[in-house]
C-alpha cells in the first residue's frame, strides 16, 4: 500500500517556485530520506505532505486520503524544526494534552510510558521552560510517538540533538520501522539517516533530481548521491 503519494505538486512563494512538479511515492513500511541542499524545498514538501500548507498545484494523498482528513491526521506524527511543546506546561501535562487531542484511551498512562522511554520520568512534573535543550528534544520525540503513528514526517530530526537524544531517536525510529511504520524525513545528517533509509530522494532548487531505493554505496559514502549530481 502507498503511504505517501505526491503527484505533480507545485508551490510558489510569490513568484518564486519552491517546488516544481514534484511526484514521488513512499510505500508503507519504508523509510524515505529527503536529501538536498538548503533551499531545495525539503521543508516545504514536508509541510505540504503534513497538511500545514496547501500545494499550489498537484495533489497529496496519505494512505489514499487527503492529509487534512481527521482520520489521516490520527495516523501521522510530525516533528518539525520546533519541538512543539508548551514551555508553561510540565512534561507530563504536555504529553497528556497531546494524548487527549489524539483521543488516546488513557492519555496519562501513555504519557507516563513515553516519559519512561525517553528518560524523563524523574522530571515529569518539571516545567518545560526549565528543561535543558536535550531534555526538550527528548520530550518532543515522546510527543511525536505518543499516539503510535503509522506515518512519521520528520524535518531534520537529527539536527542539534545531543548524543542521548540521537540514541533515543534512532531507537524509537527503528522500533517504529519494525512495527510497520512509514518514515519520511528530510535531513542533512546523511550518515545517521542512511542507517534507517530504504529509499532516497534528492531535491534540487524545487526539482526532483533522484528518487529510488537507497544505493548500497551510500552506507559507506554518505556523499555518494551528491557526487553523482555535482550541480545539485
Amino acid at each position: 500500500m502507498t503511504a505517501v503519494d505526491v503527484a505533480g505538486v507545485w508551490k510558489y512563494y510569490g513568484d518564486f517556485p519552491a517546488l516544481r512538479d514534484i511526484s514521488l511515492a513512499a510505500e508503507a513500511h519504508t523509510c524515505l530520506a529527503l536529501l538536498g541542499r538548503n533551499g531545495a524545498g525539503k521543508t516545504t514538501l514536508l509541510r505540504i505532505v503534513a497538511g500545514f500548507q496547501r500545494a499550489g498545484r498537484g495533489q497529496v494523498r496519505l494512505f489514499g486520503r487527503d492529509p487534512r482528513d481527521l482520520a489521516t491526521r490520527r495516523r501521522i506524527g510530525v516533528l518539525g524544526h520546533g519541538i512543539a511543546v508548551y514551555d508553561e506546561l510540565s512534561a507530563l501535562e504536555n504529553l497528556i494534552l497531546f494524548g487527549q487531542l489524539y483521543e488516546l484511551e488513557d492519555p496519562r498512562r501513555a504519557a507516563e510510558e513515553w516519559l519512561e522511554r525517553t528518560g524523563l520520568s524523574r522530571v515529569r512534573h518539571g516545567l518545560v521552560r526549565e528543561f535543558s535543550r536535550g531534555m526538550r528534544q527528548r520530550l518532543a520525540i515522546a510527543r511525536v510517538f505518543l499516539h503510535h503513528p503509522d506515518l512519521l514526517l520528520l524535518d531534520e530530526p537529527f539536527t542539534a540533538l545531543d548524543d542521548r537524544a540521537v540514541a533515543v531517536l534512532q531507537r524509537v525510529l527503528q522500533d517504529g520501522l519494525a512495527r510497520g511504520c512509514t518514515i519520511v524525513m528530510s535531513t542533512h545528517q546523511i550518515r545517521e539517516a542512511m542507517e534507517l533509509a530504504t529509499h532516497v530522494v534528492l531535491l534540487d532548487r524545487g526539482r526532483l533530481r533522484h528518487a529510488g531505493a537507497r544505493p548500497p554505496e551510500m552506507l559507506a559514502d554518505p556523499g555518494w548521491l551528491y557526487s553523482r549530481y555535482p550541480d545539485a
Partner: protein
Amino acid sequence: MIFLRHVLTVANKDLRSEFRTKEAINSSFSFALVILLLFSFAFDPTEEMTREFSGGLLWIAFAFAGALLLNRSFVRELPNDCLDALIASPVPAAALFLGKSLANLILLLLVEAVSFPVFGVFYNQRWTQQFWPLLLVAILGTWGFTVVGTMFSALTVNIRLREVMLPLLVYTTLLPCLMASMQLTTLLLAGEPLTSVEGLVWLRFLIAFDVIFSTLAVAFVETVLIG
C-alpha cells in the same frame, strides 16, 4: 461529544498556560482599571452624567483591555512551533478555534468581573441592581468580541505588525457589537428593564451579531489557519 471534549481540552490548555505566566491577564486587568480610574479623576462626573456614558466607558475599557488578551491567543502558539502540532493533530479547526474563544471569553469575563465593582465604587453606581440582565449583556457582548478577536488573532499571527493590525481589524468589525453592548449597558445602569422596546431591539441585534460572526468564524477558520 468528541468535538466538545476537544474544545474543552484546548480551552483548558490556554487557561492553564495563561494562569501560569499571567502575562496577558495582568496587563489586561491593569489597563481596564487604569482607564476607569483615569476617567473618573479627569472628568469627576456626576451620577447623572455617569448614567449617560456608563456603557460607553465600560465597553471602551473592556475593548482595549481585551485586545491585549486576544493578541496573545495565537501568539502563545508561536514559541516552539506549537501551532503546527495543533494543526497536525486530529482536532477540527473549528474545535481549536472555539476552545481558544472560550478561554478568551473566560479571561475577559474575569477582567470585567473586577472592573464592575471598581466602576461601582468610583462612579457611585449601584450596578448590582440589574445583575442578571447585566451579566447576560456582558456574556453576549464579550462572546461577540472574543469570536471576532480570536479569528483576527489567527489571521494576524504570522504578521510582523500584528499588534497594530489586530486592533485595527477587530475594532472596525466589532463596531455593531460594541454599539449594542454599550446601549444595553447604559439602559440597564439607568434602571431600564432589558425587556423595554429599545432594550429588546439592541438585544436581538447583539444576538444576531454573535450568531452571524460565530458561524462565519467556524466556517472559515480552517482556511485562515491552512490557507
